[in-house]
């Protein structure tokens, strides 16, 4: 990381980038589903936005949200295969999953938000 010369200054596409990260976090923490729908709509609408910053944050947040969704489905399938929600082991998996994996995605979103606020592009460490 290099020192910034745009301390606190607005740059092109910053608003969209910040909104994308905020929607990503909202999808994980506050309003799941609906926030993702808005994020997806924004991404489709601004797919060809001239700002690389906005494009990168919109694309990356959609990608990471999809990963979160896929993992949630996989974990739930595993839980049902292990006998449903009525066993101690299941709760062990559920709680550890949310406190580690889900929280890790939240942390990545926080890093993304900080990057967007600093007018920097951000790539989630996901394939």
């Amino acid at each position, binding site marked *: 990381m290099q020192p910034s010369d745009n301390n606190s200054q607005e740059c092109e596409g910053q608003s969209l980038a910040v909104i994308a990260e905020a929607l990503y976090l909202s999808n994980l923490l506050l309003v799941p589903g609906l926030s993702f729908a808005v994020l997806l709509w924004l991404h489709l609408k601004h797919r060809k936005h001239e700002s690389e910053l906005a494009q990168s944050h919109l694309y990356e947040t959609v990608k990471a949200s999809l990963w979160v969704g896929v993992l949630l489905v996989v974990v739930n399938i595993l839980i049902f295969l292990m006998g449903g929600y009525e066993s101690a082991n299941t709760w062990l998996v559920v709680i*550890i999953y949310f406190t580690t994996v889900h929280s890790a995605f939240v*942390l990545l979103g926080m890093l993304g938000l900080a990057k967007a606020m600093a007018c920097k592009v951000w790539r989630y460490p996901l394939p």
Partner: protein
Amino acid sequence: MQYQSQAVAKPYFIAALGLFAGQILFGLIMGLQYVMGDFLFPEIPFNVARMVHTNLLIVWLLFGFMGAAYYMVPEESEREIHSPKLALALFWIFLIAGALTIVGYLAVPYATLAKITGNDLLPTMGREFLEQPTITKIGIVIVVLGFLFNITMTVLKGRKTVVSSVMLIGFWGLAIFFLFSFYNPENLVLDKYFWWWVVHLWVEGVWELILGSILAFVLIKVTGVDREVIEKWLYIIIAMTLITGIIGTGHHYYWIGAPEYWQVLGSIFSALEPIPFFMMAVFAFNMVNQRRREHPNKAATLWALGTAVMAFLGAGVWGFLHTLAPVNFYTHGSQITAAHGHMAFYGAYVMIVLCIISYSMPLMRGRAAANPPKAQVVEMWAFWVMTISMVFITLFLTGAGILQIWLQRMGDTPMSFMAGQDQIALFYWLREIAGVGFLIGLITYFISFFVGGEEQAS
């Protein structure tokens, strides 16, 4: 170092680190007692080890906070400390009183300690975290009042900044809420009710102000971002801390005999308590991303970012995990609480004290701006070993807590407490191993102070 009197912070930091080592040793002893009940019995019974572990934590953090204030306030106020001699005198009083208290815990039975320290005259002992003899509590009040006088006079006579003001409010709050430790009513509900005014309003209230101000100070120094930008963040963070944290005290009132409305108020406000930690993490990363200079003290920057992340996880995520009343009905007082306590204290308070030590100690030791790169590499290794170990301690305690709740409180044929403990012994062993990892990290941290080499230019 810009002001000579900042050097009084040094003994505070050294004492803090010494007591930190003691806290970890007693934590390991206690961790082993979870699985080998008679380990070191009767020399160090479990209740004594626990008392020493938690009391040392509180005392060394107070040393660290006071050291931080003595280092930061002169720079913020642009003048020397009002009375460096008073600061040093209070240091020795606090250290001797603290050491005598710990010796008292270890040397005589607790009931005898209460008797010989005159607890009958003003009974304040026997409550978790506030086990100190009344005379020690009076000593703490004297030390803190002297400290507040010293710091307040320095601030009043010098430049007033948001950082020093927030810190000062935090310390005054710390002192005022500690006075509730002297209120010990016969009614157990009232006792618990006001006991939380010390415990909760310290760690989820005024201590967060101290944390925020230290973090802001270090970020101003290492990033070069405009003070105004950082101060705006600090205002919002402390506002959210107080808005959520004060009524959030209600999450301790669910099952103690307080009115039922606390279940609603406590749930709502404490569910919002992660917000200031969330903001703190975004703030820290945002400032580092917007930095205007490459400060050679990489280790201090790492501690600052680590504090923000770990405080969010430990206090925010693990706090939220068991804060809603319907969930807390099952999780109350289980190993889930211990998991939350460990990571929250480490993330929010241990790391911020180590952060300010990391920033200031090289300067107090006569370096230009930072330790030599080799020493910083060792320190950063210590950071990762301690932090990863704490993550594992927390995860193992979380696993233990989930099984404990299931076996003891949710099954068709609930087990007794001790029978349940036998079933989760594996988690306690794993926690102990992670605890040894933490000790290795701490030893590495101490070694980093003695690593030499060429200094990097500022």
